[in-house]
């Protein structure tokens, strides 16, 4: 088996005996957005994980081709196929509801705090934000982006919150370690006033 793999990898002899890339493509296609872990891939192909990794990389390379419309991405610890970002404009034409359900600023702030500080209680989140945070927590829970991961010690035994697998999926992260580093730099005055272009257009019209 490893022999075929090598032959295929080097692409010199096309014995066409086992077409790993094609098989992997079939598997990933069928798995859809459930994706496949390296372990699953290795198991089904009956190769070891290092070999499976190599096949994944080979297929990934093919997808880089300009002619291809899909990509092999790693999200939430699994490999899955997804359309290329640059084609989003065409896909939007096919889609019913314009714009995804994006999170509000309050939800994003709360989520950021939970993501970087988990496990954390609501009270601790509120101390950082300086405002009540019940609603954002509720929204985030119902969207399965956070979950309670236990109880804090001490009086009240408050819920501790952490992020979920859906969190990784939602933001397209491989794993929690992939979160961008928290910025410590503070001097730059670049907090934009979040001027929405869309709004600005109207802005001019009403001469606010």
């Amino acid at each position, binding site marked *: 088996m490893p022999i075929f793999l090598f032959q295929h990898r080097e692409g010199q002899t096309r014995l066409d005996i086992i077409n790993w890339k094609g098989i992997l493509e079939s598997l990933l296609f069928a798995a859809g957005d459930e994706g496949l872990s390296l372990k699953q891939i290795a198991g089904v192909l009956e190769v070891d994980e290092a070999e499976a990794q190599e096949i994944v990389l080979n297929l990934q390379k093919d997808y880089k081709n300009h002619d291809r419309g899909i990509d092999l991405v790693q999200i939430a610890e699994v490999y899955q196929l997804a359309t290329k970002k640059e084609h989003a404009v065409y896909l939007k034409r096919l*889609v019913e509801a314009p714009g995804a359900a994006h999170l509000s600023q309050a939800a*994003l702030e709360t989520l950021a705090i939970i993501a970087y500080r988990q496990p954390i209680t609501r009270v601790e989140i509120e101390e950082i934000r300086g405002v009540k945070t019940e609603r954002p927590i509720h929204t985030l829970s119902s969207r*399965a982006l956070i979950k309670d991961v236990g109880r804090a010690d001490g009086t009240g035994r408050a819920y501790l919150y952490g992020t979920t697998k859906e969190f990784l*999926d939602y933001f397209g*992260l491989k794993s929690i370690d992939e979160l961008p580093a928290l910025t410590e730099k503070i001097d730059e005055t670049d*907090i934009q006033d979040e001027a929405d272009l869309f709004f600005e257009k109207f802005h001019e019209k009403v001469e606010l």
Partner: protein
Amino acid sequence: MQYNVKIEAFEGPLDLLLHLINRLEIDIYDIPVSEITEQYLIYIHAMKEFQLDIASEYLVMAATLLAIKSKMLLPKYEEEEDEEFFDYEEGQDPRDELVERLIEYKKYKEAAEDLKTLEQERGLMYTKPPSDLSQYAEEDRADNTRLDVTLYDMLGAFQKLLRRKKLQKPVTAKIARQEIPIERRMEEIRGMLSSSGGRKNFNDLFPEMERGHIVVTFLAILELMKRKEVSVEQEGNFADIFISAQRGANEVGHH
């Protein structure tokens, strides 16, 4: 349809303070407390003017700012007292705790921005549901497998499903949506107000869920507020908002 319109454009007093610091181009490590307190209070006052409910956190922060301000005005001990004795006190700037909180909050506010970017990027990728593989399964061996999922796994799967973009059945011809002129929408709102005794639930002014329409309606209300033809009332956080016609406004209106 509930709007849950949040009166505060800011995510709380810390967010407001950061906004002021940024706008006034102040060094966060050396905040001129008098100036920022004054600006902060102007904001609170403006909110009151517009009869908007102010969350208690904002008032607590106002008190904090005033307390810091008064502490800053106290004569400094270090000049007249023994340095060593007051060593601990000396390092203690009354602003320290606030600065620390602001910096901590700012860190996560920026992280939230990063998440927003990731969210947008991810939104550009479209996925497909797992295929139905029944034809490949000879018999269902489900019975001997362990169930080890949680409610969150189920919810997560469902959210993923909801996020999966639904494709339109027939591709509808792109009809350029008629943009409603703001003036016309203002006129409609005036009409709606006068036919309902001059007061109307904010939500009722948005009968259509179409983005363009919502925005035009917002802007129309904004313009009416600017012209002092209407005022906005809300009884409490998350309570319904009402729009009221200002008496006599129509007669002196712009039409």
